[in-house]
């Protein structure tokens, strides 16, 4: 008795091929895993687990903006992102060590930093401003008849966030001006230094200072003097990225461009702040 040859249904063959293709494709297009570092202003919230930034946290608005912005970028570049909440000073070392792929803080692009990390295209723009206790500022103004400014600081104690550009600036002028430098790991720490009389002035980014001032219920603090955007104290703000990862930088830049072009970025900022940052 002759044996009947095996015959296969075309649909079944196609189905098997489609499944095999899908499996192959899924392995190829597996989402990239990225870790994004978000700056928090208060040491109490560093290493906070999950997406749980409380609205009353000092500087929560900027952290939330950075968080949403990070999510949006990750979504646009098809990456799965894990967020880490860290102090400003930890971000660049973390990127250098490979712990973070994206660093969201108020990063000005300076030659020193460019040696350590890469930077995205401009995200927003920033300047710096002095903050002090009202009891410190008002007598000074009354005495000289002129507002205090970065250039008029002589023989005083000034606090800045560790690793910030303000800290670098102060280090450069401290000897010449007879300044005593005090460092804090977070912006909230600078206010503590003022409050505890460990410093007379804090030099912060203007947006950081504003966010802390408007959350300060004691009303002890005030802006001191005009804003400064030259001498490395202002300019464009960027996302920090690992060096040698041009592909990532390129895709992040494309995502930033589309997020800005379609108005998503502006909506995120407006959701948390009463003004635009760019």
């Amino acid at each position, binding site marked *: 008795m002759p044996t009947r040859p095996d015959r296969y249904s075309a649909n079944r063959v196609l189905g098997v091929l489609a499944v095999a293709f899908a499996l192959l494709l899924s392995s190829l297009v597996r989402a990239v895993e990225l870790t994004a570092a978000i700056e928090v202003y208060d040491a109490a919230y560093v290493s906070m687990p999950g997406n749980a930034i409380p609205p009353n946290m000092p500087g929560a608005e900027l952290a939330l903006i950075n968080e949403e912005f990070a999510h949006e970028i990750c979504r646009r570049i098809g990456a799965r992102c894990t967020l880490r909440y860290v102090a400003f000073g930890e971000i660049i070392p973390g990127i250098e060590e490979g712990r973070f792929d994206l660093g969201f803080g108020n990063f000005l692009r300076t030659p020193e930093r460019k040696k350590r990390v890469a930077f995205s295209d401009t995200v927003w723009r920033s*300047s710096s401003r002095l903050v002090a206790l009202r009891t410190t500022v008002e007598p000074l103004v009354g005495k000289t008849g002129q507002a205090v400014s970065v250039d008029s600081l002589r023989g005083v104690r000034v606090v800045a966030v560790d690793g910030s550009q303000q800290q670098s600036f102060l280090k450069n002028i401290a000897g010449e001006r007879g300044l005593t430098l005090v460092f804090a790991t977070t912006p909230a720490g600078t206010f503590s230094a003022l409050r505890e009389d460990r410093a007379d002035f804090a030099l912060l980014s203007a947006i950081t200072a504003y966010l802390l001032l408007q959350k300060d219920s004691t009303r002890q603090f005030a802006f001191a003097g005009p804003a400064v*955007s030259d001498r490395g104290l*202002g*300019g464009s703000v960027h996302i920090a990225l690992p060096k040698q990862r041009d592909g990532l930088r390129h895709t992040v830049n494309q995502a930033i461009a589309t997020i800005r072009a379609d108005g998503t970025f502006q909506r995120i900022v407006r959701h948390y702040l009463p003004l635009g940052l760019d």
Partner: protein
Amino acid sequence: MLRERYNSTQVFTLLATSVALLFAIVTLLLAIDQERVLESSERLQSRTVPEIIRFQRLARNLDQLRQEGERVFSSGTSEGRQQALFLTMLVASHPSILEHPQAATAAREAEAFLVETSRLATENPASIAARYPQWQQFSKRLNLQVDDILVEGANLATADLGAVAAAMRLTRYKLMGATVVVGGLLALLLLLLRRYLLRPLQRIDHALSTLSVDQSAPEFPDTCLAEIHAVEEATKRLHGALMSNDAVRRELEVLANRDDLTGLMNRRHFMESAKAELRRAQRYGRPIAVAIGDLDSFKNLNDTYGHDAGDVVLRNFAGLLAESLRESDRVCRYGGEEFAFLLPESTVEQARVLLDRFREHCAEQEIWLTDGVLVRVTLSVGLADASHCPIEIALQQADLALYEAKRQGRNRLVVASDAG
């Protein structure tokens, strides 16, 4: 003076090169304009539009500063006033304001005024109303600044758009110019083609189609194209060849149709002509007569004076025939000293009169031989009507009549009917 002529390949190559060169120049000019438009567009996109956006943001920030300043005055609580003041100071700290000197000055002065207002209000809440008119001046100044910045930003696009418009206008003029030049060049090309190629070819075509031996040699106006001139010359040579061939043909025809000795028609040609003439006469019912004449005693003359003398007599006789007969009459050397006559439009009677007179004339004719001997010859003629019978029959009848004329004593004419 020999006119200089040009090779058409060179001429058309020159024209084609000129058109190609012109086209290349126009393309280059348009490419330059296109590059200019692209540069302006690129500048507009990469520099001007971001700059305009920067101006818009600056204007927006200044306007927000003004609004927050208003809030400092309108806020009912010191807390609200303080919040508005912080925001005012933050906006005044924005790099977009700091880098614009006029905006920075206006913002700094407004901020200082508001800080002072806030301080005084803390000490004396009533003071805030007193300072409001002064704030309105600041507010107005900020408003004007916003308008100026918006206009300044919008004007940035004007230069680039103007450059694009100017380049496009220039492109349009160049295109129009190029169209006119190319059109003119094409018209010139067509004119030159018509004048130096088509018209000469038409003239040559006409000359060739009418080329015949009846026409004079074709004449052509002078041309500057070597090839056309060559064809015209060839046409002229062709006409010359036609004429030459025709002359040869005529000569051959004469040789074929004439008797060598007398120059009269030969018998074959006479018979062909006679048949055609008879058909015509019989078709239209016209009279026609034939005759055969024979020189009397010609054998004796030959025997006496030799054949050369006979030839002289025959040639003289043929000359006499040519002088005496009508244009329409035909005569041939029928054989030896016999001659056949065809007399169209002549009745037998009319022919008899004509031939009899010729016979008498012939008898009187003196013929000098080469050796000075004078001879005279007489002619016997047999005449017949050919109006109603074929030429062969008519000639037979004439021959019979000739025989009768000989029998009756020579030097006479006998009509076939008389011969009985």
